[in-house]
Every structure is written in C-alpha cells, then in structure tokens.
C-alpha cells in the first residue's frame, strides 16, 4: 500500500493552488493547440517547453502533461464540427462525429467524445498507477543488454505495427538515429559526423526537429490544400450533456474494449492513431447496428475517442518506468525531464517520488479539469477555428520560430527548424512516418550507449543479447513485433486455405 500513500502525497502536490492554475492554463492551451492546424500535441509541448525552464520540474510536467490532455480533447472538436481532424488520432472520430453534427446532434457527439476521452484516460491512469511502479522496480535489475533489448522492442513494434511501408519506417527511424549520433560521442568523447561545422558540435536537438517536422511541415501541407473552414455551430448545454450521459452507459462494452485496445497500443509505441482506428473497426464489427456506422452512430464516436485517449495516456507508462516514450509527445515530455536534470527510467520512482506521483495525481485531476473546461467552453474553441488560416498561419510560424529559438537561444536552430519543416513536408507526402524519426533522435544516444556497453561486456559477441532468459524474451518479442505484419498475413492466408475458398469473412 506504499503506492497509495505516495499517490496521496502526489495529490497534495498537485492540489496546490499554483499547480491547479497551471493545470487549467495547460488544458486551455492544449485544447487551442489541438484545435489549430499545424500545432499538434508534440509540437505544441515542444514550443511551450522553454516557458517551463524557470518552474520546478513537478509544476512544469503538470502544465506540459495538461497541454497534452488538452490537445487530445481538442482534436475531437474539429473532427466533429468541421470534419477536419485536428490530430491524426481523431480521424476515426470524424467518421461518425461529423454526420452527427450535420444531423444537428453536434452537442451529443461532443459530449460523447469528451466523456469517452475522459473514461479512456481515467482507465489508463489507473493502469499506470497500478502497473508503473511494478514495471519500474522490475526494470531496476536491467543491465545494458536488457536496456538495449527494450529499445529494440520499442523500435521493432514501430516497424511491425505502423501502417506505412515497413522499409520507409526503417529508413525514417535510421535517419533519426543518424541525426542523434551527430556531435560529441558520449562514450569516447570524440567528435563525429560534424564535418567541421561548429554549430553541429552539440548535435541535433530533437525539439527543433519536432517543431520543424510537425509544425512547419503541417503548415506547408495545409497551404497546399488551401483550407477553407465551413462548419456547424456548436451548441452544448447541460440538458444535452445529461441526456447523452444517460445514454452512454449502454455502450460500456465498447468502451471497455476500447480502453484495453488503447492501453495496449499506447504502451507499445505505435500510439493513439492506430488504436483509434482499430477500436473503431472492432466496434463496427461487434456492434448491433454496426452497418449504421459512418452515418452518425454515437457508438462510432465512443470507440475511437476512448481508445485514442487511453493510448495517449498509456504512452506515458513506458516513458516513466523505462525511459522509452510511447508517442512523440511523450518523447518531448521525456526531453523535458532531461532538460530539468531528471533521468527518466526506473530510478525516477526511487529518487524522484514527489515528481512521479505528483505527475500521476495530476493525470487524474487534469482529466477532470479537462472534461469540465471542454464541456463549458466548446463554443469559444470552435470560434477560434473560424479565424481564417491566413491569420493563423503566420502566427503559428512565428510561435514555432520562438519555440525553436528559445531551446538554446540560437538563431541557427531557427533556420534548422525551417529545413526540418521542408524535410517533414516531403517525407509526409512520400508516406514516411515521422514519429519513429523523432523517437530515434530522442533515444538514439541511449540506445547506442546500451548497445556499445553490452558489446563491451561481451567482448564484441552478439550472443549477449540472448545470454539470459530475460533479455532473450524481450529480443524475441521484438522480432515478433518486427515481423508482425508478415506473421499476420501468413496466418490469415493459412486460415483461408484451411477453411477453403469463399468462407473468408469480409
């Protein structure tokens, strides 16, 4: 029951008036970030990270994680009202949310979306509370080989689970590793890959990459499409909320299933987006009125929103307990920890109890605050979306520039940001996933260190990665994840041939 005591201490920290204020600010900023095109969760947190340099780490992480929750909530608003997914994980929400809004049921759809988000997040936070300390204490025994195996597993699941072509995922990931390797080598203290450019001595900062790839890249994509906003009015009042709440318990099964899908997908670093699609697809197949999905079925809003929020929250579990972030935004938060001088990973639970439990407590409170804020302020946030893009775009570009500059007070970084932006635009258009690239920049140094230390211990033999049951299990799990799509395809083909032609389910 030590955890419970710790959690109560955490609540005491999170409930300080100053932290509550930061929570509200964070949620509001987060929703705005989630609503605006070009400002996603990862990128928004990256831009605002420098604002927190003067705060205590606990207050800072409370605010930043609340921005994250806010962004998760915000994505639903644009999907339902404007059929524009503010975030990739809200794409599945548009399928039924937008038709509902067109039928004049925007209030119901929004209430359902926010409530399911809340339920999903709460489920994931409870899971984190119970599981994270166990994982952390287990991970304390990890040596370099096990650490590398965990990174290996994380990156393999990217290749196996992402919907982009596997070799494009690998290419994107390796670019990230290469960028991470630039600069001072942490083990030998030698310079590498700088080619005499002094600006590169410290390597590429992933925050700059995040702001460029996600922020500028997204703006360029939007410019190309020449967006015009045309959307319904959002009216949401207490009566609609209560009525929808009365209806929602009917879908508890969908909700629970989506929670599990979300948590599972969130921990493996495939993230919220596939979780929302998977959950929508399964709900469509299982629901009684599944054929009505896509025409404005409330269950079709509940399923993806629950899963996306559960996954987004669960992504923090591996970040806290293993130091392996489950999503780009979690990666940015992890970068924040490093900047504040905290070492993410299992030792955090031993050395920084106040920080960890303050954060976990703030997850509970932040999501309650978030639910209240979004339910009451939807019309205001929807109004932001009506501001034309030609005003929003330069403001976002300026914000990105400020964010990039303030990381190291360097104007070179701002130019680098633009370069990353153009690269992000090209990669995105050519169907390369950006998340593994960013995660590889964040984890590159650590993965390399673990890899080289393991080899050092084994005198260069790769056998070290299969030397004991623990490390072999993780490595084999990684290989399974790597070849997951191949395995799955083989399995369906096998089943199809066994069952005979014509009996394959659609």
């Amino acid at each position: 029951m030590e955890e419970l005591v710790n959690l109560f201490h955490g609540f005491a920290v999170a409930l300080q008036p100053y932290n509550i204020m930061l929570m509200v600010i964070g949620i509001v900023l987060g929703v705005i970030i989630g609503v605006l095109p070009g400002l996603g969760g990862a990128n928004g947190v990256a831009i605002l990270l420098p604002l927190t340099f003067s705060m205590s780490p606990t207050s800072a992480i409370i605010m930043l994680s609340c921005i994250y929750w806010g962004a998760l909530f915000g994505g639903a608003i644009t999907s339902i009202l404007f059929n524009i997914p503010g975030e990739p994980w809200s794409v599945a929400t548009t399928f039924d949310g937008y038709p509902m809004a067109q039928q004049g049921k925007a209030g119901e759809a929004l209430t359902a979306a926010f409530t399911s988000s809340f339920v999903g997040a709460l489920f994931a936070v409870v899971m984190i509370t119970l599981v994270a300390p166990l994982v952390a204490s287990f991970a304390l025994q990890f040596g370099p080989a096990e650490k590398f195996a965990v990174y290996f597993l994380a990156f393999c699941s990217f290749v196996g689970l992402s919907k982009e072509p596997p070799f494009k995922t690998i290419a994107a990931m390796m670019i990230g590793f290469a960028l991470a390797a630039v600069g001072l080598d942490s083990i030998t203290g030698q310079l590498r890959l700088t080619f005499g450019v002094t600006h590169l001595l410290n390597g590429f900062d992933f925050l700059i990459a995040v702001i460029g790839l996600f922020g500028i890249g997204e703006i360029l994509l939007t410019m190309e499409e020449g967006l015009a906003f045309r959307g319904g009015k959002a009216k949401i009042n207490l009566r609609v909320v209560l009525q929808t709440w009365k209806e929602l318990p009917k879908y508890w099964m969908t909700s629970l299933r989506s929670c599990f899908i979300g948590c599972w997908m969130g921990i493996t670093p495939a993230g919220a987006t596939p979780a929302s699609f998977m959950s929508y697809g399964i709900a469509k197949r299982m629901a009684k009125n599944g054929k009505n999905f896509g025409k404005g079925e409330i269950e079709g809003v509940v399923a993806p929103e629950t899963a996306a929020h559960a996954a987004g929250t669960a992504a923090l579990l591996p970040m806290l307990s293993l130091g392996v972030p489950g999503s780009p935004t979690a990666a940015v938060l992890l970068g924040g920890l490093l900047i504040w001088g905290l070492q993410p990973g299992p030792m955090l639970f031993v050395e920084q109890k106040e920080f960890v439990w303050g954060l976990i407590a703030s997850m509970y409170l932040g999501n309650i605050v978030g639910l209240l804020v979004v339910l009451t302020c939807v019309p205001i946030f929807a109004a932001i979306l009506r501001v034309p893009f030609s005003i929003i775009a330069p403001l976002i570009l300026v914000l990105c520039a400020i964010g990039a500059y303030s990381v190291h007070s360097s104007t070179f970084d701002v130019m680098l940001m633009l370069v990353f932006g153009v690269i992000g635009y090209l990669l995105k258009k050519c169907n390369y996933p950006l998340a593994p690239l960013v995660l590889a920049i964040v984890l590159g140094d650590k993965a390399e260190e673990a890899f080289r230390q393991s080899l050092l211990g084994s005198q260069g033999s790769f056998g070290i990665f299969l030397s004991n049951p623990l490390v072999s299990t993780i490595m084999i799990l990684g290989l399974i994840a790597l070849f997951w799509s191949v395995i799955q395809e083989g399995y369906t083909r096998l089943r199809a041939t066994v069952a005979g032609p014509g009996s394959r389910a659609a």
Partner: protein
Amino acid sequence: MTTGSSSNTGPTHKLVEAGVTLLIALFGVIVIAGSLKAGINWGPEGPRAGFFPFYIGLFIIASSGINLWNGLREDNDGLFAEWGQLRQVLSVVIPTGIYVGSMPFIGLYVASTIFIAWFMRWLGKYNWITVLAVALGMPLVTYLIFERWFMVPLPKGPVEEWLDL
C-alpha cells in the same frame, strides 16, 4: 484563400518520391563517410565513435534501395502536387526563409511584425488596419508573455536597442 491556377499539371509522385529516396540514400552515404572518419573498428574503450553510425548508414542505404525499387515498381501515375499547389507552398517557404534568415540581424520582433504583415496582406488580402493590429499586437503579446512573465529572452536587433528594452 485563392487556390492558384487550376491547371492539372505538376511533377509526378513517382518522380518526387524517387528523388526523396535518393536524397535519403545520399544522407546514408554521408553518414558512412563521417563514421569512417571517426573510426568504425574497436579501440581501447571498445567500439569506436563511428561504429554505431556506420551500421545505421548501411541500414539507410539498404532500406532506401528497397524503397526506390518499390516506388518505381508501383503503378502510380498520380501527381505529387499541382504546380499551383507547389507555388502556394513556396509562397510560404521562401518568405519564412527570409524571416528566419533576417532574425539574427533585425531581431525577432521586427522580423515577426514584417512577416505577419506581409503574410496577411499578400496572401490574405486583409485591409491595412487588421493587418497592423495583428502584426503589431502579436509581437507585443509575445514580449509580455515570454520576456516579462516567463523571463525567456528572445533575439533583439537595433530597434529594441534604440527603444532600450
């Protein structure tokens, strides 16, 4: 926003994708060259600095090769983007390039004001009052939030020096 010319021509997706893939492969070559310079074999402290990036570079080149092969084999005659769309994109990239390039000399505030004003006037066709309100308002708010409340210094130029901020 105006959607540029409506001509349905532009670079094909295949061509651009092949170009991007080759650029990635070139990046892989650079990584390998840099790794070789840093040393890829074993030194007294174990694997030397270039050891890990060398294999990363190999992976980049190998996966680019497969991507290039897959991309060329694919039956995709679609356009990457229309010229008009690309012009839209460039109409943001080039001014942003000038904006970030001028920042070290004239500071963030002046550069931002000019940039926002240009963007709104040129691409948004707003009247001057709206343009000036946003272009002057945003840097002011930025100043208050970043420099005053959160004490994050931003780059300044001669104008700020003259104003003694």
